[in-house]
């Protein structure tokens, strides 16, 4: 490729980036939902997964308090959660936000981006498989389910057996590779 052609190619790539960039990016940034339940659910998820995003959480809780569709949310607890956030008590805020939407049961996972999220209903119909679509949980269980699950090594017999097997494979492999080093090093 000649020098001139290279500059033309680079120019086309930059033009593409500049032309398609900001406009389309902004087109994807949607508005916040209007119903209080979705807003509080989003706030609960943000608090559970990234407590540092307090600005986004506060914005949603404030909108939820002003929402014209407050069904399924205890707004008094939302207001308390906002006060807890002001006091930088993230734990209390999380607890209050989760409790604020407890009557609606645990949210159903959305069906997929671009499709309407399974909106909360106080008494949702059972699914095709026969399981209830939403179940009433204790606050502790709800909070646990809303947090990332990180399994730790506990040293149980099964874990230790798998660990020993892994170490044995690793040791045997390294030993055999070391023994045949002559074949490895040309």
């Amino acid at each position, binding site marked *: 490729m000649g020098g001139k052609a290279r500059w033309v190619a680079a120019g086309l790539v930059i033009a593409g980036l500049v032309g*398609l960039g900001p406009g389309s990016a902004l087109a*994807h*940034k949607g508005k916040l939902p209007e119903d209080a339940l979705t807003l509080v*659910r989003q706030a609960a998820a943000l608090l559970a997964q990234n407590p540092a995003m307090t600005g986004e959480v506060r914005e949603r809780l404030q909108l939820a308090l002003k929402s014209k569709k407050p069904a399924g949310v205890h707004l008094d607890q939302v207001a308390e959660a906002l006060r807890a956030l002001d006091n930088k008590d993230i734990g209390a805020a999380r607890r209050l936000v989760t409790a604020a939407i407890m009557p609606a049961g645990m949210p159903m*996972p*959305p069906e997929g981006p671009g499709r309407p999220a399974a909106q909360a209903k106080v008494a949702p119909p059972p699914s095709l498989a026969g399981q209830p679509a939403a179940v009433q949980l204790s606050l502790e269980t709800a909070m646990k389910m809303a947090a990332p699950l990180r399994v730790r090594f506990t040293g149980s017999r*099964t874990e230790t057996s*798998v660990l020993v097997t892994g170490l044995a494979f690793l040791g045997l492999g390294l030993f055999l590779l070391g023994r045949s080093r002559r074949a*490895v090093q040309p």
Partner: protein
Amino acid sequence: MSTRNGVWRALDERLGLSDFTYPVPRHANTVAYSLGGISLIGFIVLILSGIVLAQYYHPMPQFANDSVRTMMQGIRFERFVRGVHYWAAQVVVLTVLLHMIRVFSTGAFKKPREANWIIGVGLLATTIGLFFSGTVLKWDQEGFEALEHNIAIGELLGRLGYWFTPGFTENVSILLRVYIAHVSILPSLLLLLLVGHFWLVKKHGISARPGRPVGEMLPFTVHLKHLAKYALVLLGIVLVLGVLLPPAVGPAPVEGIEVTKPPWPFLPLFAFENWVGVPGLFWASTGLFVLLLLVPFLDRSPEVAPATRRVRLASGLILLLALVGLGLLALLTPGAVHVGG
């Protein structure tokens, strides 16, 4: 004739095993030249562990996340199998990338191996596709946001990207289609590409090391034995990591928020997305793959010795360092909202 030789001869007569004794250079047994073989071993581990995981995974949006969480909390072995699957995926992406870096740096993509380099780029894309779809299947916030980005790109591409959008079919959820892609479409494509890749490796032979004679030749079966030792090491590593550092799984996703960062192979692209939004993600990844496909056409000289390819090697190194730098930048800076939100 010993019993062992007798068994070998009987099997060889029926299965043609001696066809695998064709000569390969001794340096094929070094780690650098075994990275492709190690990646293949990783793929085998992924297929076997994936078959086990498929017995416990529920690919419907309502149950997917819960089925993964149940796996991780279960008292049976599926939790370790998921750990092995997760870590094997990390290792395979790493070894595939290292394999490509080795091929580029030793000029092994040059005539007559250009077509195999292109197949290799296809294998890299398929590997990344498998890694991406696997991330989505957890159906937690990270997986959900990854899919949202994919859909945003699909919408950006209009008719070309229609398959990637939920509108493609009303009756089947997009998660189920991603699952089908992960367990059927992409592995089939991988298999096809691997057959072509290995056929061309056998046809052209293992490339010589730059500036050195080919040296002693050994039967391919010796190379296979050596790969078996690497397989033990790889299996050991993924078992140990799978037990000591089992992969986490987030809660069921909530639509309309963007709170996670992508897994490490996508972090450099995330930096572009932070600058110019979703199109940056598309253009950067397209540009990178087009550049990789063009490598054999941009560097057509027969020279493979590093001393004669300083500019091209330096360009490759700069690109690599830039990607690593962008990845670190994306890791350390707060993410922006790109879709929804």
